[in-house]
C-alpha cells in the first residue's frame, strides 16, 4: 500500500517546511517513506516541488506512478505542470483550499506559517494516523493543535483514512544523503572539514558546522576551494583526519591540491556532490557527470580510490571507509554523490552501526624519513611536534627525507613507490553489490545514486516476468578483475545520469566489459522506477 504526494509552489511559499515537518512526523510515527525535491536556483518565485512517497514497505526511490495527492501552494503553475499526472482517484488541493487553510491558520494561530503544519496534519489524517499520537510527536502544544486542525480539514473534505498505511515497528532513523556522508565521515574519525559553500554539497558542511561546537571537530569556511583543500592537507599533515566537500565547479579549483595530496602522500577525503555542468550548469539539479573528471583530476600520476555510494547505509559505510583507506594508504580518496542522493530523505531501518575508526599516532626518532621506500609503497607516517622526528614534506619530487631532488633514478623509485600502493588497494576493493536473479541473462549496471532506483526496477521487471539482475558499483576506481565475475557473459545495460555513459567507458577500459546498451538521463532529474522500467523494456525489445 502506498500514498504519494506532491507539494508544489513558488520558492518561499513554504513547501520546504512542509517536507521537513512531514518527514520528521512520519519518522516519529514509524512510517517508511522516501522524499525528494526538485527546486530552482533562486530564493523566491519560480517553481519548486517536493515529492513524498509513503509506503508500508521500505522504499528508496520515486515510483513514477501517478500522484495520489497534489497540493498547490501557488495559483496556477503546480496545477498546470502536475495535474496531468494526478491519479484518476487522486486528490487535488488547489489554491482555494490551501487559501482556506491559510485563513484559518491566521485566525487560530495568528501565524500563516502554521499552514504548513496543518497540511502535515491533513496528510497524516489521509494516512489514517492515530490523532491521539500527535501529542507524542509534536514538539509543542501549538504544533499539536495545528496537526489536529489538519485532521479537521481532512474530515471536512472527506479525506480521513483515504489511504490507510500502517507504521512499521522497530528502530529507524531518517537521513538525507549528505547527512549520511557527514555521519560516516565522523565515524571514520574525521576531525577537520574545510569548504566553500556550493550546492548541492553545502549541507554536508552545514552538518559538520552545526555539530562542531559539541564534538571535537573543526569546520573552517575557506576563501575559495583552492584554500579549502590546502587547509585540509595542512590539518592532515598536522595529524587530523580531514575532508573537503564541494561540487564539480569547486572541485575544478581543488585539482592542483589533489595533485599535491598525491605527491606529498597526504591522506585526505574529497566529496564531490555532482550537479549538471559544464560550468555553472543547473546548480540545483542532479547529474553523474564528474566521474571521468574526478578519475583524472590532478596533474601527474598517483594512486586514488573513488567511492560512489548508492544508499544511505552505503553513504555511511563508504564515507567511514574512505578515511580508513586514505589514512592507511596515504592517498586522496574521493566520494561521488549527487544532488539527488544529497537531497533525498530516507528511512533507514534497524540500528545504524556507529562503530568509530581510530587513528594511531606512532612516534619516531630523529632521522625519521617521511618518504622511506617500502615494499607496499606506504612510508611510516607521523606528525610534527610529537617527537624529535622532523616531518619534511615537499611538492617537488623528493628524497626519502623530503628534500627537493633532481636525482632521476630516485625519481623513478619514488614514482614506483607511490604507484605500488595500487596493488594493495586492488586487494581491498569493495565488490559490486548484486540483486535480482543472478542467472538472468541481463544485468542492469549502476554506480552511485541510481542503485536503489535500479533495484526497484529489477523487482518490477521480474514481476512482469522479465529476467534481470542488477550490479551496483559502490567503488568505481580502481576496478578489479574480481568485480567482473558473473558479468562477462551477460547482456549489460549501463544506467547513468549523464549524456555519454562515462562508467560504461570505464568498464570497457579497465575490465574489458562491453555494455550492450546504455540508458542515460541528463535533463537534471533523477530516474523514476516506472521510467526506468519502460526504458529497459524498450532496450530489451
Amino acid at each position, binding site marked *: 500500500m502506498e500514498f504519494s504526494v506532491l507539494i508544489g509552489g513558488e520558492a518561499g511559499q513554504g513547501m*520546504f517546511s512542509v*517536507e*521537513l515537518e512531514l*518527514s520528521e512526523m512520519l519518522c516519529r510515527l514509524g512510517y517508511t517513506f522516501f522524499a525528494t*525535491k526538485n*527546486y530552482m536556483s533562486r530564493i523566491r518565485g519560480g517553481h519548486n516541488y517536493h515529492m513524498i512517497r509513503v509506503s508500508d514497505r521500505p522504499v528508496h526511490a520515486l515510483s513514477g506512478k501517478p500522484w495520489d495527492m497534489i497540493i498547490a501552494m501557488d495559483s496556477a503553475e503546480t496545477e498546470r505542470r502536475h495535474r496531468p499526472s494526478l491519479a484518476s482517484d487522486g486528490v487535488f488541493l488547489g489554491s482555494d483550499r490551501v487559501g482556506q487553510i491559510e485563513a484559518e491558520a491566521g485566525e487560530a494561530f495568528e501565524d500563516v506559517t502554521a499552514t504548513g503544519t496543518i497540511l502535515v496534519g491533513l496528510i497524516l489524517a489521509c494516512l489514517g494516523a492515530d490523532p491521539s499520537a500527535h501529542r507524542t510527536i509534536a514538539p509543542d502544544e501549538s504544533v499539536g493543535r495545528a496537526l489536529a486542525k489538519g485532521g479537521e480539514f481532512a474530515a471536512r473534505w472527506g479525506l480521513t483514512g483515504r489511504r490507510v498505511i500502517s507504521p512499521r515497528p522497530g528502530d529507524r*532513523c*531518517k*537521513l538525507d544523503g*549528505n547527512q549520511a556522508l557527514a*555521519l560516516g565521515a565522523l*565515524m571514520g574519525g574525521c*576531525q*577537520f572539514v*574545510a569548504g566553500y559553500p556550493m550546492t548541492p554539497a553545502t*549541507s554536508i558542511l*552545514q*552538518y559538520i558546522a*552545526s555539530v562542531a561546537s559539541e*564534538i*571535537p571537530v*573543526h569546520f573552517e569556511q*575557506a*576563501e575559495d576551494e*583552492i*584554500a579549502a583543500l*590546502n*587547509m*585540509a*592537507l*595542512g*590539518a592532515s*599533515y*598536522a*595529524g*587530523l583526519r*580531514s575532508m573537503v566537500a564541494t561540487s564539480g565547479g569547486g572541485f575544478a579549483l581543488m585539482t*592542483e*591540491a589533489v595533485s*599535491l595530496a598525491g605527491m*606529498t602522500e597526504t591522506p585526505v577525503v574529497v566529496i564531490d556532490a555532482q550537479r549538471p555542468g559544464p560550468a555553472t550548469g543547473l546548480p540545483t539539479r542532479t547529474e553523474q557527470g564528474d566521474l571521468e573528471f574526478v578519475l583524472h583530476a590532478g596533474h601527474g600520476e598517483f594512486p586514488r580510490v573513488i567511492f560512489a555510494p548508492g544508499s544511505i547505509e552505503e553513504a555511511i559505510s563508504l564515507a567511514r571507509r574512505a578515511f580508513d583507506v586514505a589514512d592507511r594508504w596515504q592517498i586522496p580518496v574521493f566520494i561521488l554523490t549527487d544532488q539527488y542522493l544529497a*537531497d533525498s*530523505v530516507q528511512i533507514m531501518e534497524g540500528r545504524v552501526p*556507529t562503530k*568509530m575508526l581510530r*587513528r594511531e*599516532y606512532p612516534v619516531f626518532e630523529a632521522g625519521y624519513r617521511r618518504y622511506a621506500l617500502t615494499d607496499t609503497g606506504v612510508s611510516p607516517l607521523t606528525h*610534527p*611536534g*610529537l617527537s*624529535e622526528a*622532523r*616531518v*619534511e*614534506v*615537499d*611538492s*617537488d619530487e623528493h628524497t626519502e627525507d623530503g*628534500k*627537493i631532488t633532481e636525482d632521476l633514478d630516485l625519481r623513478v623509485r619514488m614514482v614506483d613507490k607511490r604507484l605500488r600502493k595500487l596493488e594493495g588497494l586492488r586487494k581491498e576493493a569493495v565488490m559490486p553489490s548484486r540483486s535480482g536473479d543472478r542467472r538472468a541473462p541481463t544485468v542492469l549496471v549502476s554506480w552511485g545514486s541510481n542503485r536503489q532506483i535500479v533495484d526497484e526496477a529489477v523487482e518490477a521487471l521480474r514481476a512482469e516476468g522479465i529476467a534481470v539482475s542488477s550490479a551496483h558499483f559502490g567503488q568505481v576506481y580502481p576496478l578489479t578483475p574480481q568485480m567482473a565475475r558473473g558479468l562477462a557473459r551477460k547482456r549489460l545495460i549501463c544506467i547513468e545520469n549523464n549524456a555519454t555513459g562515462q562508467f560504461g567507458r570505464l568498464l570497457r577500459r579497465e575490465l574489458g566489459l562491453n555494455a550492450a546498451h546504455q540508458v542515460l538521463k541528463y535533463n537534471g532529474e533523477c530516474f523514476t522506477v516506472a521510467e526506468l522500467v519502460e526504458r529497459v523494456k524498450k532496450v530489451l525489445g
Partner: protein
Amino acid sequence: MAKQEIAWCPGCGDFPIRATLEKVLKELPVPARNIVLTSGIGQAAKMPHYLPYSYFNGLHGRSLPLAVGIKLARPELTVIAVSGDGCHYGEGGNHFIHTIRRRLDITILVCDNKVYGLTKGQSSPTTDQGIRNALDPQGNLNTPLSPLVMALAAGAPFAARTFAGDPHHMEQVLREAILFKGPSVVDILQPCVSFNKVNTYAWYRERVYKLGEPLQDRHEAMRAADRWGERIPIGIFWRDGQFVCREVRETFRRPVTEAAVARLLNTKCIMMR
C-alpha cells in the same frame, strides 16, 4: 649548512634572511619540534629545506591555507609561512588577505625581491611600473602593489618591513613578528642579484631608514607603510596591543566518541533551498 647544498645564486638576499631566521628560531622560547614552516614555490619558498625544522613545502601561492590547516589542527605549534612576493602577493593574493582575517597566530614572511626569480625575471606584483623583462618587453604596465597597506587593510595586527642587508634589524623584527600572538606580516626587502638590477643592496642602503616607536593607529601605519621612493621606512609599522587571537579548540588526540555520533542520528535534515 654547506653553501653548495643551497639552490640560491651567490649573493642572493635569501642567504642573510635564512641565517637570521635560523638564529631567531634557535633562540625562540619554544621547543624546536613545535616549529613548523610552510612555503609555496619560488626561490624563497625553498627556505624550509635549509632550516632544521618540520616543513610542508606546498604549491605556488598556497603556503597560507596549509598554515591555517596546521594551526587549526594543532594550535600548540608555532607556524611560519615563508615565501616570496610572487607567491604571497600574486598567486596566493587571495589567501594573503583572508589568512590575515582569520585572526590566527601565524607569521607570514615575504622575501620581497620585486621580481620572479625562479622563472627567471618576470614582473611580480611589487615590480615597479615600466621595468622591462622577457614578458614585459615594453615595460611593466601595472601599478606596483603596496603590500603592507594591503595587509593593514585586511586587518593585520602586526605589519613590518625590514631589509635583508641589515641582519640586526631583520633579527629584531622577525623575532617580534614570530612572538606576536596573531597574524603578523613582515615584508623583507630582498635584493635579487640575478634579475633585479635596480633594487640592489646599494640602492636600498641609500634609502632605508628606521622607524622609531610603532605608529599610534592603523591609518597612520598605512600612510607610513605606503612611503616608497627616495626614502623607505623599515621597522614595525603597526602592532595592535589590544589584539586578541581567535580561540582554537584542541581536537588532536581527542577523538569524537561513539556516543556523540549516536546522539547525532535523527537530528533534523538541513534543507538547502
